[in-house]
């Protein structure tokens, strides 16, 4: 790029850098919601650490990560449904059913563990396709379709379990999903690979933009992002290594979050999901097959719910009649909303699944350490969710006020 030929230089000015006021506006309006949420996590951690100095220990933070794996994975699918402006109330029940299918196939029928896991995951996918097709084919609100699903799949869970009630999982391959820890060396190798991949893709994208004359050549922005991500990865691996090592479960969670974030933000399919969530009629007129997008999104939600359910069964070493019940569904939906994914569709990111699970998990874990009662835990979590949706609604109202001058 040093020997630039002036006559071929595109006559496009590099976009102006956002001013400080612009950054503050984005922060308030939710574009920088993730920064807001990370600050929230820091505040929560400081509060709990001041109350109980065991909170910020390596062993407790590792436990926290293991606790949020299942709900975080389910939330990844929920994010896609929320991006469409829809809701899936069946993800909890689907996670329980998928885990039960896996357990029954493995324990009662002696299936190979991988085949049993695949059966559980495919069960979730099939349910998602079915619900998505009913929703978009008949135009039934997704709220109702998945509410019916919530009941029906809970019934299916009881049916699949039969008289047994509880199935204990002994297969090392399945229990290993949530109970495997990598050695320190492997942990550091993974850290280097992750940082390298992030830095490589960031710099590659920056170079392409500079070549097209769309960005100025200063590397400050990309470098800051790379340094922040590298610091976070190194800190996380250092903490996990000083306990039992990097858990496979965390790798699975982060892997799915990163992969699904890529799908949402960088690919044709993801762009169409945002378009349908923003204005379905505009998307339809632009030639996008909105029925197909909706069915695939509900299939993703079902699949991720199944994967989350299987991880939960692996951690608890059993599937029983209350698997996927209790507050799992509500937490899986609350997480992304707390972390900035809008209930009104078209806005949000898959990262919010991880961040939201971290917020809810931290509150829950911290209150456990303080030995608070369930009554208090439910009320506090409910209050945090309420606060988050109010922020979401206010941000939306402000956007509308700015938009139509």
């Amino acid at each position: 790029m040093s020997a630039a030929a002036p006559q071929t230089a595109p006559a496009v000015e590099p976009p102006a850098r956002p001013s400080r006021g612009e950054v503050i506006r984005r922060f308030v309006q939710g574009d920088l919601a993730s920064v807001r949420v990370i600050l929230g996590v820091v505040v929560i951690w400081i509060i709990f650490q001041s109350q109980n100095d065991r909170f910020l220990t390596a062993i407790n933070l590792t436990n926290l990560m293991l606790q949020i794996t299942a709900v975080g994975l389910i939330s990844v699918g929920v994010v896609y449904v929320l991006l469409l402006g829809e809701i899936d109330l069946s993800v909890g029940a689907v996670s329980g059913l998928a885990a039960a299918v896996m357990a029954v196939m493995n324990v009662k029928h002696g299936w190979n563990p991988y085949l049993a896991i695949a059966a559980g995951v495919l069960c979730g996918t099939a349910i998602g396709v079915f619900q998505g097709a009913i929703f978009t084919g008949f135009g039934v609100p997704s709220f109702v379709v998945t509410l019916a699903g919530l009941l029906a799949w809970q019934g299916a869970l009881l049916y699949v379990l039969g008289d047994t009630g509880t199935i204990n999982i002994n297969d090392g391959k399945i229990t290993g999903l949530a109970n495997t820890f990598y050695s320190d060396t492997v942990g550091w190798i993974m850290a280097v690979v992750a940082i390298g991949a992030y830095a490589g893709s960031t710099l590659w994208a920056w170079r392409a933009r500079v070549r097209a004359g769309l960005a100025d050549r200063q590397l400050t922005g990309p470098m800051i992002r790379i340094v922040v991500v590298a610091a976070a990865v190194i800190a996380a691996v250092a903490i996990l290594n000083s306990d039992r090592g990097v858990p496979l479960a965390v790798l699975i969670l982060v892997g799915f979050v990163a992969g699904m974030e890529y799908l949402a933000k960088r690919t044709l399919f993801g762009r169409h999901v945002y378009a349908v969530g923003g204005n379905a009629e505009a998307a339809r007129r632009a030639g996008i097959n909105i029925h197909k997008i909706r069915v695939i999104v509900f299939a993703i939600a079902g699949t991720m719910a199944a994967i989350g359910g299987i991880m939960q069964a692996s951690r608890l070493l059993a599937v029983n009649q209350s698997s996927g019940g209790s507050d799992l569904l509500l937490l899986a939906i609350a997480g992304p909303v707390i972390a900035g994914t809008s209930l009104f569709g078209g806005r949000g990111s898959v990262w919010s699944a991880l961040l939201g699970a971290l917020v809810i998990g931290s509150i829950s874990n911290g209150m456990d350490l303080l030995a608070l009662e369930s009554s208090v835990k439910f009320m506090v979590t409910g209050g945090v969710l309420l606060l988050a949706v109010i922020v979401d609604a206010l941000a939306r109202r402000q956007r509308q006020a700015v938009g139509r001058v």
Partner: protein
Amino acid sequence: MNSDGPLLALEGVSKRFGPVQALDGVDFEVRRGEVVALVGDNGAGKSTLVKSISGIYRTDEGKFIFEGQPVSVSTPADATALGIATVYQDLALCDNLDVVANLFLGQEVVGSGAAVVTQQLDETAMEHRSHELLEQFAVTIPSVRSEVGGLSGGQRQQVAVARSLLGEPKVVLLDEPTAALGVAQTAQVLELIKRLRERGLGVVVISHNLADVFEVADRIFVLRLGRPGGTFDTQKASREDVVAAITGASENGAHGAEAPA
């Protein structure tokens, strides 16, 4: 205006919805570098005519001639393939997406090589092309990466028009482009329409606002009860002539009505 024949001509077009004769023997044409305003009272058949041209409705009778060749337009894809683009009144933009994403909605550019596998978007190419397009038509927006929901009504309308230009059409149909816009924003959109004319496009504008029509159009085509109500040269006709044709007050002999010069 141009020595060659019309870009798009419709001859004897009729369309019936049950008992309602929406269009009855309409002849209509638009030339290169010409802005034709389509005016008429509510229910006169303006929207039906535009939707017939853009392939949403199939006409019962009549011939389509595009660049001198008889063609058949029975689906929106047919019209797009010929180079006919339509901008609807309600814009059809996604407020949550930025300008680039809206310009390329439904015709996104996918990267080459490994990017094909995952259908990864080529944001750089799309952004580059967006800059070119907006610069070419002197569309002024804060940034191509700003969310469309945060733009003013005039800017949104310009983005909607620019989006129709992405496929390099020859004819652009605009349905009420200045409805619900303020004075300054209306002026922006009318300027954009004039630039389309300078680029040699044929432009058809539906409008209720005669001030806008006289400002921007070369020719005014009046529809009345599904029939042609007269064609006026904007330079020669008066507003009264056009109003009379719209309301039918000049049923026995429209003075200003004549074939285009």
